[in-house]
C-alpha cells in the first residue's frame, strides 16, 4: 500500500506556460534538447521538496512580454493511494492517513487524494520571490476551476520526512560523491552504527597504525618535527602538530574513502581511474543503496505499514554507457522501488519502456508542448507493431519528420536521393525514412499522430496500395483528409519503384549498376539465358500481371526489359544502393533525381526550409 504522484499541472514555470500530465510509476520523457524536460523535472522536485532558490527567471514570459511582479507560477500535484500492485485505489493506508492527516486529505466522490498547489510569487515583505503551498480542496480539470484553500499550508514534519524527491542529473559522478559528505554515498558511509566498544577498539588501531607509519617513514617523521615548530611561531607552546596518514576517528573515515574496482583479470583500480560510464553508474547505485537502507530503517521504526515515498527524477541514464550497458542500467532503474521520471535521448532505453509511459516533449513558439501516449486510439495488432517499431526504429520518436515508404529498397534509395537533393543526410534535418508498406501504414501513422510529427508517404501505384494508404490516413486522422492526402506522393500507372524507374528511362543506368555490382558486364545477358522459359514466383507474376512462365526471347527488346524487371524484383534490396548511386551520378543534372522523388522532396522542402533557419529546435507544424 503506497502512494503515487498521479497528476501534475504546471502554469508559467520557466519554459512551461501550461501543461497537464498524468504520471504512472514509471515515466519516460523524450524530446529534443531545450524542449523543457529538465524544467519539468525541476518543477516536480520543487513541488515535492519545496526547497530551492527561486528567482524571477523561474516565471514564464512569452517572447515580447515584460515580466510583471504580480505574475505568478503554479505547480499542482496530486497524490493518490495505491494498492500492493501499484494500482490506484480508494483510500490511503492507515500509515499514510496519519502522515497527511485531515489537513491535506480530501475526497472526490469515493476516493481520497492529496492535492498540493505550490505557488511561486513575489513577496513584497521579503522583497524576493518565494514559495507558498496551498491545500487543493477540489481538483478540477482546469486550473482556474480547481478550488484551493485560501490559507497557506505547510508540510508537517512527517510529510517532510516521508516524501522524498531526488534529482539525478546527467553529470552524476561517484568520484565527486566521494568528496561530498552530503551525497548519498557520503551519508551512507558516515552513519555511526557501531557500539562504543567497537569504536574505541578501531580508533585505537588507527592511532596505532598512524604512529607506526610515521615512525617508520623517516621523511614523514622529519616533516612532522619541522611543522611542529609552528607552535613557536604562533606563540603557543602547547599546540601539537601531527600528520595523519589515516583518519583517526571513525566519523572521519569517509573523508579519504575510495571505491576500488577490479575488472576481471585487471588489477584493482580506484574508481577515479575508471571511465565516466562506470562512475555515473556507481553513483546511481549508491543512491539506490541509500534509499534501500532508509526504507529498512523506516520499516523497523514504524512497522510493516511504514514506508517512504521516493520520487527519482533522472536525466540521461544512458550517459557514457554502451548500448547494452544502457539496457542493463535501465533494468536496474526499473527495479528501483519508487516512482521514476526519467528523461532520455537513447533509443535503447525507449525500446525497453512501455509505450504508455512515454511522454513526448517539444517546443512550439518558445513554449513547451507535451503529448502523452496514454490516450492513443489503437487495437491489439497495432500494439504488436508499436512494440516492433520501438524495438527496432525507436529513432522514429526522435525525428522531426517522417517519410514512410513501401520497403527497404525505397528506404535505401530515398536516403541517397535525399543526400543529393539537400546536400546532407536525412538525419541532419531530423528526417527519418522508414519502410512501412502494406499493413504497417496504420500503426505508424497512429504513432506519428500521437507524437505530432510531420509525415509524408511515398507509395507505389497499385490500386490496392492506394486503398490501404487512404484507409489508414482516414482511420487515423478522421474523415476530412483531403488536405492530408497531399502528403502522399504516389507512383502512377500501377508502378512499382523499379518499374517506375525503368519507365522514366533509367533502364540503362540500372543495368550498368547491376553489372558493376556483380562485376560482370554480361550479367544481364547471362541472367536472361539462365532464366528464360523458367517460372517466376507467383507473387512477382501477380505483381507484374504477367504469365508465370518467363519469355525473354520471343520479343528481344521487351524481353530484355522483362528480364531486368524480374532481376530487380528478385533481388530488391541487393541492388538498391548501387542503382541509386548510379542515378545520382548521371552526367545529366536533370536526371539525377527521378521526378516523383523530386516531387516528394519539393514537398518536404517547405518544412525543411523552416527548419534550416532555426538550428536546434523542432519543426513548426500547422496543427
Amino acid at each position: 500500500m503506497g502512494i503515487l504522484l498521479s497528476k501534475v499541472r504546471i502554469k508559467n514555470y520557466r519554459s512551461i506556460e501550461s501543461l497537464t500530465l498524468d504520471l504512472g510509476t514509471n515515466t519516460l520523457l523524450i524530446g529534443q534538447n531545450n524542449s523543457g524536460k529538465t524544467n519539468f523535472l525541476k518543477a516536480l522536485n520543487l513541488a515535492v521538496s519545496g526547497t530551492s532558490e527561486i528567482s524571477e527567471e523561474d516565471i514564464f514570459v512569452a517572447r515580447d512580454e515584460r515580466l510583471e511582479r504580480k505574475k505568478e507560477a503554479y505547480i499542482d500535484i496530486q497524490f493518490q493511494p495505491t494498492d500492493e500492485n501499484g494500482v490506484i485505489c480508494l483510500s490511503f493506508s492507515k500509515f499514510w492517513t496519519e502522515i497527511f492527516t485531515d489537513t491535506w486529505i480530501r475526497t472526490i466522490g469515493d476516493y481520497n487524494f492529496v492535492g498540493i498547489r505550490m505557488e511561486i510569487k513575489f513577496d513584497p515583505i521579503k522583497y524576493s520571490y518565494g514559495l507558498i503551498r496551498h491545500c487543493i480542496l477540489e481538483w478540477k480539470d482546469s486550473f482556474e476551476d480547481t478550488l484551493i484553500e485560501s490559507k497557506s499550508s505547510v508540510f508537517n514534519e512527517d510529510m517532510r520526512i516521508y516524501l522524498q524527491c531526488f534529482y539525478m542529473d546527467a553529470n552524476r559522478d561517484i568520484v565527486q560523491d566521494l568528496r561530498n559528505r552530503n551525497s548519498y554515498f557520503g551519508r551512507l558511509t558516515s552513519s555511526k552504527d557501531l557500539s562504543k566498544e567497537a569504536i574505541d577498539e578501531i580508533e585505537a588501531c588507527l592511532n596505532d597504525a598512524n604512529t607506526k607509519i610515521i615512525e617508520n617513514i623517516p621523511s614523514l617523521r622529519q616533516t612532522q618535527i619541522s611543522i611542529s615548530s609552528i607552535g613557536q611561531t604562533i606563540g603557543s607552546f602547547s599546540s601539537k602538530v601531527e600528520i595523519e596518514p589515516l583518519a583517526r576517528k571513525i566519523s572521519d573515515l569517509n573523508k579519504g574513502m575510495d571505491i576500488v574496482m577490479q575488472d576481471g583479470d585487471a588489477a584493482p583500480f580506484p574508481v577515479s581511474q575508471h571511465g565516466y560510464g562506470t562512475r555515473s553508474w556507481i553513483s546511481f547505485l549508491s543512491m539506490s543503496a541509500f534509499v534501500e537502507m532508509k526504507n529498512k530503517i523506516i520499516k523497523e521504526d514504524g512497522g510493516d505499514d511504514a514506508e517512504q515515498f521516493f520520487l527519482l527524477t533522472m536525466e540521461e541514464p544512458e550517459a557514457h554507457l554502451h548500448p547494452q550497458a544502457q539496457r542493463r542500467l535501465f533494468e536496474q532503474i526499473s527495479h528501483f522501488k519508487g516512482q521514476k521520471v526519467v528523461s532520455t535521448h537513447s533509443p535503447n532505453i525507449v525500446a525497453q519502456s512501455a509505450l504508455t509511459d512515454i511522454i513526448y516533449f517539444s517546443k512550439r513558439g518558445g513554449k513547451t508542448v507535451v503529448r502523452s501516449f496514454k490516450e492513443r486510439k489503437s487495437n491489439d495488432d497495432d500494439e504488436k507493431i508499436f512494440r516492433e517499431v520501438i524495438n527496432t526504429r525507436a529513432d522514429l520518436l526522435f525525428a522531426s519528420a517522417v517519410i514512410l515508404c513501401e520497403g527497404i529498397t525505397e528506404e535505401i534509395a530515398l536516403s541517397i536521393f535525399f543526400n543529393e537533393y539537400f546536400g546532407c543526410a536525412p538525419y541532419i534535418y531530423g528526417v527519418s525514412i522508414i519502410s512501412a508498406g502494406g499493413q504497417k501504414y496504420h500503426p505508424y501513422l497512429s504513432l506519428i499522430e500521437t507524437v505530432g510529427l510531420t509525415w509524408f508517404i511515398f507509395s507505389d501505384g497499385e490500386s490496392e496500395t492506394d486503398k490501404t494508404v487512404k484507409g489508414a490516413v482516414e482511420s487515423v486522422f478522421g474523415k476530412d483528409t483531403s488536405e492530408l492526402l497531399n502528403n502522399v506522393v504516389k507512383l502512377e500507372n500501377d508502378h512499382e519503384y523499379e518499374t517506375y524507374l525503368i519507365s522514366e528511362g533509367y533502364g540503362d543506368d540500372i543495368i550498368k549498376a547491376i553489372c558493376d555490382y556483380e562485376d560482370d558486364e554480361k550479367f544481364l545477358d547471362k541472367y536472361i539465358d539462365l532464366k528464360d522459359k523458367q517460372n517466376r514466383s507467383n507473387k512477382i507474376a501477380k505483381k507484374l500481371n504477367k504469365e508465370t512462365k518467363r519469355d525473354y526471347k520471343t520479343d528481344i527488346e521487351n524481353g530484355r526489359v522483362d528480364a531486368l524487371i524480374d532481376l530487380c524484383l528478385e533481388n530488391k534490396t541487393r541492388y538498391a544502393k548501387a542503382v541509386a548511386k548510379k542515378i545520382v551520378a548521371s552526367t545529366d543534372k536533370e536526371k539525377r533525381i527521378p521526378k516523383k522523388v523530386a516531387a516528394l522532396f519539393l514537398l518536404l522542402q517547405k518544412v525543411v526550409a523552416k527548419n534550416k533557419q532555426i538550428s536546434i529546435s523542432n519543426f513548426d507544424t500547422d496543427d
Partner: protein
Amino acid sequence: MNLSPKQKQIVEHIDGPLLVKAGPGSGKTRVLTERVKRLLIVNKRSKVLALTFSNMAAEEIRLRLETDREVGDAIKRVTIGTIHSFCLEIIQSRGYLIGLRPDISLFENETDRIAILRSVISDKAGIEMNLQRQGDPKTFIARCLSAISEFKRSLMVPESCDPISAIYRQYNDALFNQNAMDFDDILFYAYRILADNLNVVKLYNSVYRFICIDESQDLNNAQYNIIRILCSFYFYNIMLVGDENQSIYAFNGSNSKYMSELFVRDFKPTIYKLEENFRSAKQIIRFSNSLFDNTDDLSRYLYEGEFKITAYINELAEAQAVRSAIENLMNSGHKDIENPLKYDDFAVIARNKYVLSQVESELKKGGIPFFYKNTQSGIAYETDYMEVFDLTLSLIKNPIDEFHRQKLCKLVSKDLSKGKDCSNVKILIEELLSGSKFAWLITALRQISSGEVLYFDRVLEDLKKFFPSDLSDDDRYLLEKDIYEWQNHWDKFKSQVAREHRTLIAFRNAISLGNTQEKTQTGVSLLTGHMSKGLEFEVVFVIGLTEGTFPDYRAVIKGDEAITQEKNNIYVAVTRAKRLCYLSYPQIKTMPWGSDKAQKPSRFISSQAISLK
C-alpha cells in the same frame, strides 16, 4: 502537585470510552490535560481532539500542554477548541462538499437575525402570514427565531418543521443567498457535511483517534450527534467529562441526558466519579452538598471557611453589607486565607444583572474597582463610526452580503439599491462613504482586501491618523475607546495566529467566536451564574436569593426541569467560592413602579440557618 489516586485512575484508563462525573473543584481540567498529554505521548501518530465549552478553558488547556516539556512537538497533533470553532473549521475546509463557499459570513448579532426574519416575513411571497394576527410582532418574531434555533439544534430540515416550515426555509435561503449563516448553522452545517460524506467521516475517524469533551452536561442534540458521527467507524477512545449538577443551559437546548443517558447507552463507557472538591472550604461544601443530598465525609477538608446566609431589610442594606464586607476583608484579611486579598479575589453573583445594580452603585461610592464580565463573544462598539466600519468589513469579506449592504446604505443615508451587484467592493465602499461624515474611514479601509494577509496595525494607524477633529469630548472619548477595543482584539488575534494566516475572515470569525476576548479586567467581578462558570474566587457573595428571582418566577411556574436548572444555577454560583461564601436576600424589594413588595427567601436556602440583619 501529584494526581490523587482517583485522578490517576482516570488518566491511566486503558483504551475504551469513559465518562467522568466530576464535581466542582475536583481538578477536572487537570485530569483532562493529563489525559490528553498521555494520549499524545503514548500514540506517536494519531491526532487528539479536545473540545471544551469556552475559549478560556481551551486556552488554559493549550497553555498547560504548550509549557509541558514532555509534550514538546506533540502539541501539533492536538486540536483544542470549542465545539463551535471545530465545526466552523469543518465548514471552512469542507463546506464546498455541500455547496458552501469557504468565505461564508457569520451573522452573529441577534438583531441581524431578527431583521432578516422580519424581511422574510414581509417581503417573501408565498407566506400567507398576517403579522397582525399573530399578536405582537416582536414576540412573534422572537418566538420564530427561537423555534428555528431549536429546529436547527434538533438537526431538522425546514420541510419537517410545521407550522413554520416556509418561514424557516425562506430564512435559511435568505442567509444562503448572501453566503451567510447564523450560529446554529455552524453545528447544523457541520453535521450535514459529515452526514452526507461518509468518506470525510472515515477520514476524521482514522485521523482523530482520541476525543475528549469537557463540560459535557451542556451538550445539545446537534453537538451530541456530531460527536457520535465522528465515532462511526472505529472502536473509540472517547472521554466525556461533566457534572449533571452544573447543567444550567437548558434554555439553550443543552441537556445533561446526553451525557448521563444517551452516551452511556450508545458507548457503554466506564464510569468514574470525581467527587472531592479541592477548591472549596468545609462550610461551603456542606451547603453545596445539601442541595443534592450528598452525604460526603467532610473530615478530609482542610479549611473550615465560612458560609453565612443573611436576610437584609432591603436591597440597599444588602448592597451596603456587601460593600463593607469587602472593605473589612481587604483591611483585615481572614484566618483561612493565606495570601493577602486583592479585589480580583471577590465576586458578586446574582441571578440576573438587574439585581446587581444596587451593588454597583455602592461599590462606586466606596471607590472599589469592579467590572461586569464581558459578553462571551463578538465586539461591542459605542459609536456609529465603528458600526459603519464593521459593516464595511462585512462587505469586503462577503461582497454579496445584501443584508449588511442595505444596513450600511441606511446608515450613510444613501439609496438602498446603491451598489447592488457592484463588482468591485472597494469602489462600492468609497461611493457609499464619500461625502458623508464617515468619509475619513476610507483611507484605512483601502488597506483591507479579502483573502489576503491582513495588516490591521496599519488600518488602526490610519484610523487614528484621520480621526475627525471636530468631535465633542464625549464622542471623542467613545470613539477612542472603540478603536482601543479593536486594537485589543487584534493584539490577541496576533498572538494566536501566524502572520500568513491572518486574513480578514479569520480575524472577524475569531472575534465572533470569542477567541479574542480580553481577560485582563481587574477589580471585583459582578456576574450572573452563567458567566461565573469555570471561575473561582476566594470570596463569593450570592445576592438576591428570593423566591421569584432565584429561582426565577418563570421557572417556578414551569416547575420540575426548570427548577432543577435553577438549583444547578445556585450550585454553580456557590461552588465558585474557595474560602468564604456569603448568601443574602432582601426582605423587601422596591418595584420599578414604586411600591414595596415583601420577599420570601429562596426555597434553596429556606431550610438553612439564616441570620437576620
